[in-house]
């Protein structure tokens, strides 16, 4: 090849094309999404235009406080490498049948997140709606401390370093882990295992992960 200007232009425009097509365009399309009410109502001015219902709650909500700190723990521990946070539509995969969420998730569900953790691996289950499943904080703490306690045969990493083993002085702590009787993983007699602040935050975050609202483009169908 001898036509070098053509070579340079080609190299430049090849990537510029996909950069514009994939990144800039989706930034325009998705970047303009805003919070909305669960359903839309016809506008007073023009009944053909649908607008947000006045006074109703806007979704998706921003997670705040302890849950927000828990998301940082989720990031630090690399949870995303085994757990996705996206529910696919009914009929594509079995996300719906596995109760991973009451509806598929859409782009708007993620607009309030400063870091989006969609994930591409399901060595473990999807967590988009884990807070909506019948699992309480006690269960999550036992499961994080050692997954074998709640889910024998699981390949999930244990996170004992998010917990402290302490000698019980006087009364036992209210937030000590509640091991099942005869558990192989419980503390020595006279000791208790309590969550650190990081573990408490992480569980708070997991419990905050819920798809319990409709969006106009993705309603929860009963």
């Amino acid at each position, binding site marked *: *090849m*001898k036509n070098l200007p053509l*070579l340079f232009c*080609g*190299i430049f425009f090849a*990537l510029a*094309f*996909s*950069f514009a*097509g*994939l*990144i800039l365009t*989706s*930034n325009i399309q*998705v*970047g303009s999404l805003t919070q909305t009410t669960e359903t839309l109502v016809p506008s007073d001015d023009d009944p053909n235009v649908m607008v947000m219902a006045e006074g109703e709650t806007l979704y998706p909500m921003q997670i705040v406080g302890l849950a927000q700190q828990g998301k940082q723990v989720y*990031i*630090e*521990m*690399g*949870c*995303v*490498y*085994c757990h*996705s946070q*996206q529910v*696919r*539509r009914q009929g*594509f*995969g*079995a996300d*719906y*049948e*596995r109760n991973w969420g009451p509806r598929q*998730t*859409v*782009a*708007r*569900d*993620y*607009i*309030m*997140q*400063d*870091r*989006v953790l*969609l994930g591409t*691996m399901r*060595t*473990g*289950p999807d967590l988009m709606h884990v807070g909506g499943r019948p699992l309480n904080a006690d269960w999550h703490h036992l499961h994080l401390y050692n997954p074998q306690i709640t889910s*024998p*045969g*699981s*390949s*999930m990493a*244990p*996170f*004992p*370093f998010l917990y402290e083993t302490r000698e019980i002085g006087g009364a036992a702590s209210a937030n000590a882990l509640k091991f099942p009787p005869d558990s192989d993983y419980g503390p020595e007699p006279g000791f208790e295992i309590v969550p650190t602040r990081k573990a408490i935050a992480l569980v708070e975050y997991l419990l905050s992960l819920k798809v319990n609202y409709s969006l106009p483009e993705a309603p929860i169908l009963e």
Partner: protein
Amino acid sequence: MSTAPQLNSQSTKLYSSKDSGVRAELSQIDASIRTSAIFFVISAIVWLMVGTLFALITAYKAHEPSFMGNQSWWTFGRVRSAHLNSMALGWSSNVIFAVGLWIMARLSRSAIRHGGLLLIAGVFWNVGLTVGIGGIIIGDITSVEWLELPHYATPILALSYAMIGVWGVVAFKFRRGEHVYVSQWYILAALFWFPWLYVVAQVMIIWFPARGVVQSVTNWWFAHNFLGLWLTPMALATAYYLIPKVLGRPIHSYYLSVLGFWSLAIFYNWAGVHHLIGGPIPVWLISAGVVASVMMVIPVIVVGWNHHMTVVGLHRECWRSPTLRFIVFGAISYTLVSIIGSTMALRSVNEVTHFTHFTVGHAHHGVYAFFTMIMFGGVYYMMPRLLKREWPSASLIKLHFWGCAIGITVMVVALQTGGWIQGLQMNDGSIPFLDIVKDTMPWLKARSISGVFLTVGHMAFAVNFFWMLFAAGAVRAKQGPTLLQATNEEGAA
């Protein structure tokens, strides 16, 4: 190619050009890049070993989760990411800086001036990466796939890359001779594409996060193109340079190389969105990614055919030359992995393979069986020219080849078979999740075993390399190149 015409196209006996002028010029160019290229190869091999260690820990933890489970530093997500970054930015990028820049300098017939600056930039790259991997381990991981390095390490990498990549462009700018060979197009393009991808991804995901899933689109635009527009062009450039070099026979078709290059340039960079099939992003984006992924069949078949027609009839030579044995393995893998990749992008296939170990197997098929094997071949060819010594041990080269060839084959077959079963089971809502986990165990154990083979191969490579570097093999220079079959013939290694 500027030097190929001097080679006798029928003979494989020539060690190098008959023209002493050409030999002297190449020798001078080799000398200009020697110190920095050797530094990059040493760094690459050190990272390869570090990455292998992280890989073994990761693979073992996948079926023995309590192993090293008591410290946060060695939790699965971090070790796995340390492995990925050691291999992608440590091994792969360093070996590209060595072999890619060396090929660029040779083909441009342009010595690397002020090589000291290149060396300093290389030191910074590796310091930045060490800081970054340390950051991942202590918990500053970003949890953005392929971009795990913490924000305090990436600017060092970006700046040092600018100082490294520019040498390839400078060598090209001061090129001599009319013709520009296909390897130069690939290298020039990759040197330009990589920083663009990296900076955009850093800015839009880490520094000034884009809204919502724009981050995910950017993430996979980057991550897939890291393979497609950084590793792939460099490996293809190496194959395009070395296959004719070793065989002493020109590339089959100039026009096929043009077609292969431009179709790759146009299609590959749209393909990454296929990692988000079924995900919460606009469907037209995914469709664009699927179409581009399928169109990748064109460059793959074209390049595969071009390489095949170049080596056809000389299979014995390919097997005898350490360089070509690795490169041919890599080139065949390129065709295979790309066809599988295009198939995986189809929605109905992706419904099964997405979120499973199938994808992990596919990633290793590409980065290892294709890219890494070709770059091993490149190092086998380059080092004797830089050091004026031969590889000390043919047995270690064979051990290296077989360890890697068997290891990666076992890994890809195990992960893709296990992953396919995992995907089918996951799509059947009546199968409890823990049963699926249990059924993946034998396949994950097979992966750990494959890791042992790969480790043996890498150790053989490292031992041979450092043995050569520290001169014990100097005597071999008099006996001609190290080949893999007992023979009286001479041939290019």
